[in-house]
């Protein structure tokens, strides 16, 4: 028999396709699960989500011992390209393909849009990377858990600490979209509540702005002593870098209202030093976080996880524990039931320690206020933060009564 190159290739391709089909494996068919990471894999938020989030999901499955316990878990990923339309379509497709959990999702507009899809399809959704506190507020539902952080926590931790430290007069530079406005409004409210004053605010066009010098000059001439940056990602990196060029760091304190360790890495310590910021996870906090970091590092050697990515680890681990406790794979297809089970059990993992999920879907973790080290203080790669203060979980997040979550009867 003669085998042509074409048929050989064809046969090989069929073999590969068959092996890739998750349903092809009979062994664990009864306990198969699918987890989809919807994130930014190509744009501005790739470093705070993207491949490192996927690495953290895989680490959670490894630490849970999914394989040994007989679970066959497929991890899928989708790039939302910073578009709510693309993100929503991805979530619909994933859930229709039998995905049991969608996780990650940076960008509040997309995070909230997918929350609606999870509700309609009645599948579990853990958002670890959107900032809007409205995810557990007016948009909250029984299928969604909001891990990691939100605008309320960021504004109270960073804003509150700066005012206490004597920074009473604030000038804000705000990204002109829903997230920026929410972050600005909540922080300004905290500042006023604590006896501070808002000297001014400018909204910059998002995402087209590269040069912030005009806004920085306005801040400089406003007489404020704190510069609040209600922005994220490369905008914050550019703002801090350019604030240095104008010497603003010498006359004003700079408060990055949403800064991730990946942003600090992008700025470099020369520029970032002295910045005050809030995260709920830092790899070098304690022995448990360091142990987690040591395990996950081979999967993401050049980009250490920030809080959102560590949230993917913590969230998936807890999801798997809930699935195990339910011990009935049919119930796992009922998103509300899985999330109810997750809320029933306290969480415990190396990244976040012991915590819990509130009735409205809010993951209750501590908020840590950090100061970025100087280049001289930093002893190794990614040694960037000094802990300034800890806000305990019960004070870090908005009280449920104030949120307006439809799940909560008041």
């Amino acid at each position, binding site marked *: 028999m003669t085998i042509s190159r074409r048929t050989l290739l064809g046969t090989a391709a069929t073999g590969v396709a068959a092996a890739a089909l998750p349903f092809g494996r009979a062994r664990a068919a009864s306990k198969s699960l699918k987890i989809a990471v919807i994130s*930014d894999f*190509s*744009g*501005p*938020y*790739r*470093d*705070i989500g*993207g491949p490192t989030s996927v690495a953290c999901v895989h680490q959670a499955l490894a630490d849970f011992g999914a394989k040994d316990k007989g679970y066959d878990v497929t991890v899928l990923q989708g790039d939302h390209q910073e578009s709510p339309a693309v993100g929503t379509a991805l979530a619909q497709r994933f859930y229709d393909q039998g995905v049991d959990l969608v996780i990650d999702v940076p960008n509040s507009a997309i995070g909230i849009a997918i929350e609606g899809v999870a509700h309609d399809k009645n599948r579990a959704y853990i958002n670890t990377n959107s900032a809007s506190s409205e995810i557990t507020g007016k948009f909250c539902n029984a299928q969604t858990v909001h891990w990691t952080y939100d605008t309320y926590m960021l504004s109270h931790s960073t804003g509150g600490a700066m005012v206490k430290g004597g920074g009473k007069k604030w000038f804000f530079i705000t990204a*002109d979209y829903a997230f920026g406005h929410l972050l600005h409004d909540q922080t300004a409210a905290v500042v006023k509540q604590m006896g501070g004053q808002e000297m001014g605010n*400018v*909204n*910059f*066009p998002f*995402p*087209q*702005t*590269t*040069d912030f*010098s*005009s*806004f920085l*000059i*306005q801040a*400089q*001439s406003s007489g404020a002593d704190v510069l609040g940056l209600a922005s994220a*990602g*490369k905008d914050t*990196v*550019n703002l801090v*870098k*350019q604030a240095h*060029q*104008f*010497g603003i760091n010498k006359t004003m304190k700079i408060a990055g209202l949403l800064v991730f360790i*990946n*942003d600090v*890495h*992008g*700025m*470099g310590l*020369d*520029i970032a030093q002295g910045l005050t910021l809030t995260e709920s996870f830092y790899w070098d906090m304690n022995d448990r976080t360091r142990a987690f970091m040591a395990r996950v590092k081979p999967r993401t050697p*050049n*980009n250490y996880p920030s809080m959102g990515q560590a949230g993917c680890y913590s969230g998936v681990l807890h999801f798997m524990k809930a699935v195990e406790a339910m011990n009935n794979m049919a119930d796992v297809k009922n998103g509300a039931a899985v999330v109810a089970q997750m809320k029933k059990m306290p969480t415990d993992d190396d990244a976040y320690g012991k915590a819990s999920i509130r009735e409205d879907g809010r993951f209750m973790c501590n908020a840590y206020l950090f100061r970025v080290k100087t280049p001289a203080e930093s002893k190794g790669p990614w040694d960037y933060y000094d802990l300034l203060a800890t806000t305990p979980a019960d004070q870090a997040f908005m009280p449920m009564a104030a949120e307006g979550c439809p799940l909560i009867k008041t």
Partner: protein
Amino acid sequence: MMMILGKPAPLLFGQLLLGIINGSFYAMLSLGLAIIFGLLNVINFAHGALFMVGAFVTWGLLHYLGIGFWPALIIAPLMVGAFGLLIERTLIRFTYKLDILYGLLLTFGLALVLEGIFTNGFGSSGVSYGGPNILSGTLNLGFMYLPVYRAFVVFAAIVICFGVWFTIEKTSLGALLRAATENPALVQSFGVNVPRLISLTFAGGVALAGLAGVLAAPLYSVNPGMGTSLINTVFAVVVIGGMGSIGGAILTGFGLGIIQGFTEVFYPAASSVVVFAVMAVVLLARPAGLFGRVA
């Protein structure tokens, strides 16, 4: 304090100056685009990506080879220009005889590929570049503190723009270039290697994008998306100035920088739109642009 239109005068002087600084980037980038369009009839959408490559090369020279800012001012544009030469010879030259849209699509695709490669290699938050020590610090102008480096950028931009304009409009090399684009067959019959001239022109235009990238590296976050944010505005500048008009691109670049600077004081939310509003008005009044020749 003196007030103008309800804003403190020092703030407005500051904005004027900042507008000129931003305008110098618009001018340098639109200059390269105008040359490539005016002489080659290619709408080079990869210009922003090549600007980004210039900034990354600057960072890479320091990071991997320890070569600082001043040598990078020469080396990085040469490297970007050589890369431009490569893509012109292997890809872009095949679009010269086709509809102009093919060149646009090809370069747009190239821009996406370049951004994708750099995002994969360096991540989206980018890398940090410090700039030369001698230009650090600020000047107290009375009404504002001006970073020395920004003053240098304006100076460099004016020198570069004048140099390029002079070369193309006033020297015999420039005359040859312009002739080669008007009537390539005739110029070739005089023994001039026209394809080589065109390749080198493309490389030169691209090298200008690389040079702007070097100058931008100490100012902005060096990240794979840095060119995309600028390129739309720069295209508007070229259109307003008159497609292919070199002097027009330079003057419009500075002019729009200033207009944008003032918008950022009076109505910040409109600062990214104002350029396109001006473009719409100009195109209604003068379809060929401010300095363009009607075809």
